[in-house]
């Protein structure tokens, strides 16, 4: 078994509701993996099962090749950084960081050295004597991280650990934390509902929905080749057309939509109800060159200038907004203009239309 953390067929029910449904996840040694999904998708439950804070109904969990399914949390050597940080309010910063070391039969001096080293990793070495109540949110977050790192855990788990920070600090911490964990060679699993955080921090992202992992891929791959409509919509913006598959065409399908026929990557039988999706930044204004392009017409509804890029909402007769994003500030259309939109067929994906099928 190569994976450092592996879950096999892991299921958890609360009453009648399945919160986790036969989840297989393999995290390689030294990898930073994010469980990404909306609230209620089971991501936190999966993390708590790995930590041993909950017991699964079915399936098994292995850490470092050993089955730990029935091992209590205090014997798993797993570090957890909680959303609320869960710092011990009656102890100082050093008392918190040293908590895990004191149970290991180390000498007082040795503990002090390790505490200082862990605090230095998060740039909090001068705060050891402070009570934790006196710290800001960002500082508490660092202390919680130092406390988890101090015991040199086999795996680090982060439960929405950055979500309580304000936006600027969160973005700084994302980059800093990734660099620190990479330097330490740590294996880590993050839980978040924030797609930017997932893409920034992880080597691989597991997109979760309704207790299952929909896709487990590298961030770039996940964004460029989403495997489900859910993953497409959850990671980035999806510009969509609905229609019926006309024919298969060598790894692609031709889909008849009210806006015209479009080509998309994917495989669905002829006659199937389909959703064709692409990313807003793949779409150009104008017909473009080449045969492998999808072209539709629409009327501009709104133009939102955002500095480096401009978002344009176009009414293509598909109900909602068809989002287009272009760089540069030249040749911006105005609301009411009729424009031709085009994008590469290789950058459009077809999915079964669950709404139609149901």
């Amino acid at each position, binding site marked *: 078994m190569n994976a450092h953390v592996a879950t096999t067929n892991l299921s958890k029910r609360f009453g009648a509701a399945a919160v986790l449904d036969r989840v297989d996840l393999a995290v390689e040694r030294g990898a930073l993996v994010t469980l990404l999904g909306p609230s209620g998708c089971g991501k936190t439950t999966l993390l708590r099962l790995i*930590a*041993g*804070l909950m017991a699964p109904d079915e399936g098994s969990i292995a850490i470092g090749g050993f089955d730990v399914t029935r091992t*209590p*949390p*205090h*014997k*798993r*050597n*797993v*570090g*957890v950084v*909680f959303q*609320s940080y*869960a*710092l*011990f*309010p*009656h102890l100082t910063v050093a008392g918190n960081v040293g*908590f*895990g070391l004191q*149970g*290991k039969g180390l000498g007082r001096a040795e503990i002090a050295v390790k505490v200082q080293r862990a605090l230095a990793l998060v740039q909090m070495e001068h705060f050891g004597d402070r009570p934790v109540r006196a710290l800001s949110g960002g500082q508490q977050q660092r202390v919680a991280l130092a*406390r*988890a790192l101090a*015991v040199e*855990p086999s795996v680090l788990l982060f439960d929405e650990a950055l979500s309580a920070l304000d936006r600027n600090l969160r973005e700084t911490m994302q980059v800093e934390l990734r660099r620190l964990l990479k330097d330490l060679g740590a294996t880590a699993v993050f839980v978040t509902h924030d797609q930017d955080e997932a893409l920034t921090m992880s080597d691989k992202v597991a997109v979760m929905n309704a207790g299952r992992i929909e896709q487990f891929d590298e961030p770039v791959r996940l964004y460029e080749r989403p495997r489900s409509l859910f993953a497409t919509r959850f990671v980035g913006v999806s510009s969509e057309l609905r229609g019926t598959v006309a024919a298969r065409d060598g790894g692609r399908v031709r889909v008849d939509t009210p806006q015209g026929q479009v080509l998309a990557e994917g495989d669905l039988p002829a006659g199937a109800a389909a959703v064709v999706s692409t990313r807003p930044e793949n779409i150009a204004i104008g017909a473009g060159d080449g045969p492998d392009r999808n072209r539709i017409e629409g009327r501009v509804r709104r133009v939102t200038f955002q500095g480096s890029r401009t978002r344009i909402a176009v009414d293509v007769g598909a109900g909602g907004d068809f989002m287009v994003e272009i760089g540069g500030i030249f040749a911006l259309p105005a609301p009411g203009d009729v424009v031709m939109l085009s994008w590469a067929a290789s950058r459009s994906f077809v999915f079964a239309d669950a709404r139609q099928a149901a």
Partner: protein
Amino acid sequence: MSRALEDGAALPRLAFRAPQLSAGVLLALPAAIVLLALYAIPLARLMASSFVGPSGLSFQAYGRILGDAYGRSLVWNSVRLGALTTMIALAVGYPAAFGLAFARGALRSLFLASLFLPLAASVIVKSFAWSTLMRSHGVVNEALMSLHLTSAPIRLLFTQVSLISGSVNIFLPFMILPIYSVIAQIDPRLTEAAATLGASPVRAFLRVVLPLSLPGVVAGVSLVFSLSVSAYVVPTLLMGESYPTLATTIARAFLLLRDPALGSAAGAILMALGLAVVVASHRFGEKSAGQ
């Protein structure tokens, strides 16, 4: 027009500012008046009368209690009642407070009701109930005999068993409620964090939950000790004359002996005992919390 507006704008701000400064004083004033008139002044007069002897100022009343074997036994009986009640209530109430905190739904309502409802019954009623249970042909003795654990009724009433069990029963809610209210505030993530840091459940309890629950213990100990050390009805009904305490002496001094100096001195000693335990337990709580 614009001047009037400015004035108008300035007015409510002023009107708002002034009371804010003294809001704390104003809000506390009714309670302060009541306490001063009905408690502090009578207490001061009581204290003063404890220093009155046959020829003016005197410590004679204190000497009669503390300088005499019988007098010291009054102090000892009060302290014993208070200390035993507090210790047993703590031993029983501490786990019970966790039971209450962990209970959910109907069970929690049941637990809370069983704590609060007895508080609505008068302590006299409860003491009589205990004396009925404990008398020679009361429920407890009948039960023991029908189980053939004893052949004849055991003497329970007017023994220390009945005194302490009655006292613990009556004052137990004052131990459980403050401890419960503190541990209900403890973030359950803290014990999880301790577990992920390698702490066994016992170590997590001793190093995290116990220290964080101490403020509740301090409050519970202070309450139960000051209530039970000065209890009058409980020892009178469950022990009678054979267990004289400072509290029963106060009543005897004022009602029977017409000796206000003795009664006041007994009251002063009782108050000093209660204060000592309250202050000491708070010191202990602060010291433990600050470690």
